[in-house]
C-alpha cells in the first residue's frame, strides 16, 4: 500500500458515521431535570420575542434564562424560588400566568364584568320586547295591508 491510498482510507474513515456520532448534544444528561426545566420555561415569557415562552425561543436571552433555570434547579431551588428570581428582575410581565394583585384585578375580573354587563343588557332587551307586544296590532294591520297590495298586483297581472 502506498501513501496516497493510506491517506485516502483515512479520509474516508473520517467521514464515516462512527465519528459523526460525536456531535450528539449533551442535553439528555438528566432527563428528569430537563423535564422540569422545560415545565418552568413554558411559564416564562421571553422578553426579546414577547409572544414566545423561553422554552420556545432560541434568542440569546431565552437560552441564558433556560440555563439559569437549570442551574437553579441543580442547586435544589424550588419552582417558586425561580419564579420569584425572574419576577425580581423582569417584573410580573415575565410570567405568562399573571398573579392576582391590585393592578391585575381588572385583568382577571374584566371578562366576568363583561359577561354581567352583557347579561343585564340582554335581559333588558328581551323584557322590553315582550312588553311591546302592544305593537302586535300594528303588525297585524301591516300584514293586512300587504295582503291587499299583493292581491291588487295579482289582479293587475291577470
Amino acid at each position, binding site marked *: 500500500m502506498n501513501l496516497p491510498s493510506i491517506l485516502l482510507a483515512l479520509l474516508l474513515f473520517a467521514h464515516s458515521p462512527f465519528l459523526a456520532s460525536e456531535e450528539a448534544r449533551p442535553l439528555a444528561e438528566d432527563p428528569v431535570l430537563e423535564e422540569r426545566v422545560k415545565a418552568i420555561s413554558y411559564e416564562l415569557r421571553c*422578553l*426579546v420575542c*414577547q409572544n414566545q415562552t423561553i422554552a420556545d425561543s432560541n434568542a*440569546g*436571552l431565552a437560552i*441564558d*434564562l433556560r440555563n*439559569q433555570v437549570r442551574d437553579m434547579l441543580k442547586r435544589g431551588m424550588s419552582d417558586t424560588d425561580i419564579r420569584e428570581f425572574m*419576577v*425580581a*428582575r*423582569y*417584573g*410580573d*410581565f415575565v410570567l405568562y400566568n399573571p398573579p392576582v394583585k391590585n393592578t391585575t384585578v381588572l385583568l382577571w375580573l374584566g371578562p366576568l364584568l363583561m359577561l354581567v354587563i352583557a347579561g343585564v343588557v340582554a335581559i333588558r332587551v328581551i323584557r322590553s320586547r315582550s312588553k311591546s307586544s302592544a305593537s302586535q296590532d300594528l303588525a297585524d294591520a301591516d300584514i293586512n295591508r300587504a295582503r291587499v297590495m299583493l292581491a291588487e298586483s295579482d289582479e293587475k297581472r291577470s
Partner: protein
Amino acid sequence: MKVSKFLIPLVVFLGVSVFLFKGLSLNPREVPSPLIDKPAPAFSLPLLHENGSTLSTNDMRGQVWLLNVFASWCGPCLEEHPIIVDFSERGVIPVLGLNYKDNPVNAKRWLERHGDSYSSVVVDLDGRSGLDYGVYGVPESFLIDGDGIIRYKKIGPLSQADIEADILPLVDKYKR
C-alpha cells in the same frame, strides 16, 4: 329616550377609541422595571482595559453614576453612542460601561472606532450581571445613586431628551 338609543353606539365607539388610542401608543417593549428604587445588584467584574483588575459596585458607592449596558454587536448602541460619549465628556457623573456578552477584542476595537469616554468599562462575558439587572434589550442604562439604589432605567438607546428631561433632574436630586 329615542335619542339616547342612537347615542349608545357613539359612546361605545368613543370608549373603544380612547382605549385603543392609549393602548396603541404604548410601547410594548417598555416593560416597567421592578428594579426602580431597589438596590442595584452587586457585581465585581474585570475591567476591559486593565488586565487582571476588577471593579465592583461597592467602588461606586457615595456617588451618583450611570451604568450603560452596551455591546459591539448591538446596532442601536451605535446609534446611542455619540450621546453617551457627549454626556460622559461633560463630566456630570461617572458613566460606567458594561460590555454585555461581547468579545473583548471586538469591544476594544468598537470603542477605538466610535469613541471611549466611559470612566471605566467592565466586562460581563457570560451575561450573568446583565441577567441580574434584568437586561433584555441592549443598550440599557441605569442611574444609580450614592446608596446604590437604582433611580432610573431606560431600555433602548438614550436620547438627548432623556438626559435633559429625566437624568439630569434625578442627578440633581440625589447628588450630595
